[in-house]
């Protein structure tokens, strides 16, 4: 479970960074999206992954982290998801506008001079 999670985060982050470095606006958007997925999973993992534990109130158990899972990272992830979603939409709008104005999807607005 932990290994799968760690590999998933690593793969997403790696792909995200690679795409981000490709200097095309669409690739950058995709890269940032993957990166934000990786970050969201990472926040989740930092609350300790527990299988089958309820977040806040369980039945007739003592309400400590031994019996429940930490609800705070889940709240943090929700916030992070909302923010990254909105920012991706904004970036897409800017990228489309830049594409329309400059006729190029290079992040500099024109192809690199060689």
């Amino acid at each position, binding site marked *: 479970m932990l290994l799968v999670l760690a590999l998933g985060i690593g793969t997403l982050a790696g792909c995200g960074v690679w795409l*981000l470095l490709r200097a095309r606006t669409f690739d950058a958007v995709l890269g940032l999206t993957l990166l934000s997925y990786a970050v969201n999973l*990472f926040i989740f993992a930092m609350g300790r992954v527990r299988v089958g534990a309820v977040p806040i109130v369980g039945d007739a158990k003592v309400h400590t982290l031994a019996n429940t899972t930490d609800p705070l990272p889940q709240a943090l992830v929700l916030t992070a998801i909302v923010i990254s979603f909105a920012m991706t939409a904004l970036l897409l709008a800017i990228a489309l506008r830049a594409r329309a104005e400059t006729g190029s999807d290079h992040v500099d607005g024109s192809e690199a001079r060689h």
Partner: protein
Amino acid sequence: MFGGHEIVAPIVLPLVAGALILLLEQARSRWVAAFSLGATLALLGLAIGLVRQADDGVVQAYLLGNWQAPWGIALALDRLAALMLLLTAAVALGALVYALGAEGGHGAAAPSGRSHFHSLFQFQLMGLNGAFLTADLFNLFVFFEVLLAASYGLLLHGATRARLSASVHYVVFNLTGSALFLIAVSLLYGVAGTLNMADLAQKLPLLAPENRRLAEAAALMLLVVFAVKAALLPLYFWLPDTYAAASAPVAALFAIMTKVGVYAIARSTTLTFGAPPLAGLATPALPVLALATLVLAAFGALAATRLRGLVAYLVVASAGTLLLAIGIGSAGTLGAGLFYLVNSTLVAAAWFLIAERIALARGGSDLLEPRALGHAPAGWAALGVAFFVAAVAVAGVPPLAGFFGKALLLQAAGQTPFAVWAVALVLGSSLAMMVALARAGSTLFWKGGVGGAGSAASVARAVPTAPSAAPQHMAIVALLAALLATTVAAGPLARYTADTAAQLLAREPYLRAVLDAQAVAPMFDVRKEMRERGEAQ
């Protein structure tokens, strides 16, 4: 002032004002600008009140939602937060008044009008104020996003080609920074189980040794994120393009944006990571990088081909000087750095406005090359005076307060291991700035001449003077007057910043204020009512 609620007011006021402005814009009201101006004026008044309130040296906490500190989000008002609030309001007022003038005019200089300038402006202020007040790391992230989201919108105003590609860079860079911020924050949560800055400051020294490296990594990652905002050496390359591309009032407001990064570094290195074993984690790297930033900024200023580019490098240089002060981190350098911060922010804001007026008077070009102007545009001499005053202030030459800031800093840095390098490079970069500014000034105002023959063709283009230039001149004069005021009141200001530094380094009052803040008895106890209803069933 308002029974303790004045601490949250600097966040709520721009939020409500921004939302109302959206509605007013929808109704095509003529009162949008007046309302925006009124809200900013109210913010300035509020900030002055808060500075006076914080100056008694007591840190005040405000519990959002009435939840006690480590569980809920707390705001905290201390001298540093109050100072930053006041500075933000002052710069914002200058930028807004200038923008109102541009609104009456037309052409590329008009930043406002159709596209929600005023509401974005207010939301940006909300993000800035929130970032200065919050005592919670995740909340700091949220306010960073608020101010960044607003800044993306502001940057895109009257989008030109250069502005668009600069925007793409700026947004992508900052979104990557946000991802890093989140990783660092969640790492800290993973090892310490809290995100309250005061609580973290208490828990981090008690970490098990195996978690210490993780905490160090998180701390350094946070510093990288803040350094992106503050424009430290390997991370400042977004700044000159972005600031040079933004419209003048937006760039003036952005002068406070780099200071958010500086503030966050000052706050986190003194408070959250201020105790051993994390204390001094960045001490060797931060001053060295800050000095390198200074050197490169000096080269950038000397090589600038446009006035706006030159001004952007002045901002980078001031960030370098500030981070040097914070990086060394003694009480003396911190106090001197904060003193310099006030000056450098005001003067940077003034510079962006002056640069645009000069460009307009020269037919819309701010290229640093001789250009025959035909006859002197209206207010040319006044612009020259403004240029001179701002140049003196930014280069740190007596008699203006920029000089006091640098002198205090060098005096304080003289007792540290960085003495030689600090003195040599700060003075060297000041000299380079002076050369760059003198060259720019003589090119702009003297070469090419005024009233020369054969330049009739350029006359028509050279006198665009918008009918409503008065607010713009007023804004520039007001910012320069604020600079002069800090010079005249340098004594009290230096006393305040020295007290601020002492308060930052004392740490304990802040921790106690935030962690011991008691939830107030609520006016309507909703929870009690729910409990009783639950029991009745």
